[in-house]
């Protein structure tokens, strides 16, 4: 019966060509093969986010008087609501973690080099979008932490000279973080960002399908017989699926044993609670802003921070385009830059966590 369906489809859509294409896809096998799995895991976690996000949408209501109450309703009244919300929150964190791991593994294996420059750029943009997803989604339960995180996060944009204030108003939908901000962030989180993300993700995956998976640089010039490979379909895919299952278990474990709290409702007239901190993936930026003095030469401290991260991000995104000009020691310099960035992010995150 399956065979008949396949034949029926193949006759109309020439599936055989696709199967042929997939059977020629190989994954290089070497001591760093493990890092190839993190892209797939990130993709899986994105799918988990889409699924749980759609489920949350069925009960979530947006508004100053509705958001907090609806999330509380989901967590206390809806069957398995606590689970779905917890998985969505944990999934977001795990996805950003795996995307970071994926990015650094691509960086250190130098897989961003020609001809994969645009795969790198699209991947970096996907990470930025994932951070925006995190930032906009964080406000939606309209709790105290969310309120201050958004107040601070949007205020940072205000340090941009000349247009800063107007940008903050556009982001917030007014002068203050209010119901108008909730409506905007909701729209961004469930419509605009998923739209852009899906387009970029499709491109990212298309690039990978078209060019194949990057081989280690040490393979260049080696005879074919010395290169070990495994077929993508089904060997790699089945291993990837097994990992997806493990990740789903980890997610379920976290959601069940460490359920995501809701905390008190946002109150625009209450002082910020002691010990308030952003999510771990923003901690390195938070800690940098915290230790910057009010004035750096003639510039405001927070503007210097914003400038530092914007320029740093741009340099990181464009690394495949300028790294080739570093000359004889390009490998060593690129390696060193990677470590500096990684150590900086790790140190600042730990410092922010402990302070």
């Amino acid at each position, binding site marked *: 019966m399956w065979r008949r369906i396949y034949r029926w489809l193949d006759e109309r859509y020439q599936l055989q060509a696709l199967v042929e294409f997939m059977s020629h896809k190989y994954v290089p096998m070497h001591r760093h093969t493990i890092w190839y799995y993190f892209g797939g895991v990130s993709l899986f976690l994105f799918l988990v986010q889409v699924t749980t996000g759609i489920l949350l949408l069925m009960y979530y209501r947006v508004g100053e008087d509705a958001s907090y109450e609806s999330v509380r309703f989901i967590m206390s009244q809806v069957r398995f609501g606590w689970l779905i919300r917890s998985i969505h929150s944990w999934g977001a964190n795990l996805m950003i973690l795996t995307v970071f791991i994926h990015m650094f593994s691509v960086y250190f294996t130098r897989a961003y080099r020609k001809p994969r420059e645009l795969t790198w750029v699209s991947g970096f943009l996907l990470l930025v979008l994932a951070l925006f997803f995190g930032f906009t989604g964080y406000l939606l339960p309209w709790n105290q932490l969310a309120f201050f995180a958004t107040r601070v996060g949007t205020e940072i944009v205000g340090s941009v000279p000349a247009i800063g204030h107007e940008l903050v108003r556009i982001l917030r*939908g007014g002068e203050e973080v209010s119901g108008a901000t909730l409506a905007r962030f909701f729209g961004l989180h469930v419509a605009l960002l998923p739209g852009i993300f899906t387009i970029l993700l499709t491109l990212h995956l298309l690039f990978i399908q078209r060019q194949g998976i990057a081989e280690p640089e040490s393979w260049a010039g080696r005879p074919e017989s010395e290169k070990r490979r495994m077929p993508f379909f089904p060997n790699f895919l089945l291993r990837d699926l097994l990992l997806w299952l493990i990740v789903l278990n980890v997610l379920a474990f976290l959601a069940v044993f460490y359920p995501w709290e809701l905390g008190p409702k946002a109150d625009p*007239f209450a*002082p910020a609670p002691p*010990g*308030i901190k952003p999510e771990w993936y923003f901690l390195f930026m938070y800690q940098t802003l915290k230790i910057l003095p*009010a004035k750096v030469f003639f510039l405001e401290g927070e503007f210097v921070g914003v400038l530092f991260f914007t320029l740093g991000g741009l340099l990181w995104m464009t690394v495949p385009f300028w790294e080739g000009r570093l000359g004889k020691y390009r490998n060593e310099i690129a390696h060193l830059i990677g470590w500096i960035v990684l150590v900086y992010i790790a140190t600042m995150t730990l410092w922010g966590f402990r302070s």
Partner: protein
Amino acid sequence: MRGVTRRSFIDWLLGLGIVGWISSVLYPIIQYIIPPRVPEARLSAVKVGKVDDFEPNSGRVVRFGNEPVLLIRTEFGDFKAFTATCTHLACIVQYRPDWKLIWCACHNGRFDLNGINIAGPPPRPLEPLKVVVRGDDVYVTREA
């Protein structure tokens, strides 16, 4: 004019048309996402409570229209008020009775009881407001 052919002229005209078309689509969208300015009634004074509601060496965030204001009663019993929005990144500040200072929990900014930024990242002092005690009632007012 030299170099301008009929074709390049038409191309230029078409290009201009496309730019005009895109602008006419984008302009209303950009205008739409900029929130309209809602005129706010300028408050002169707000009654925030009775004198006895505020213990000496304590502080509380009170409403001044749409604005949060930190009202402090010092250990000597006099009142002070400042806008409660931190000048660093707009968190809401609080009074720390143990330090007798104004503190922002978000980035550890500190202000003295004159609202002057004395430690941490805040770049400017807090804006002071006037507190008037009339009989038993405490009023916050913006007029100097």
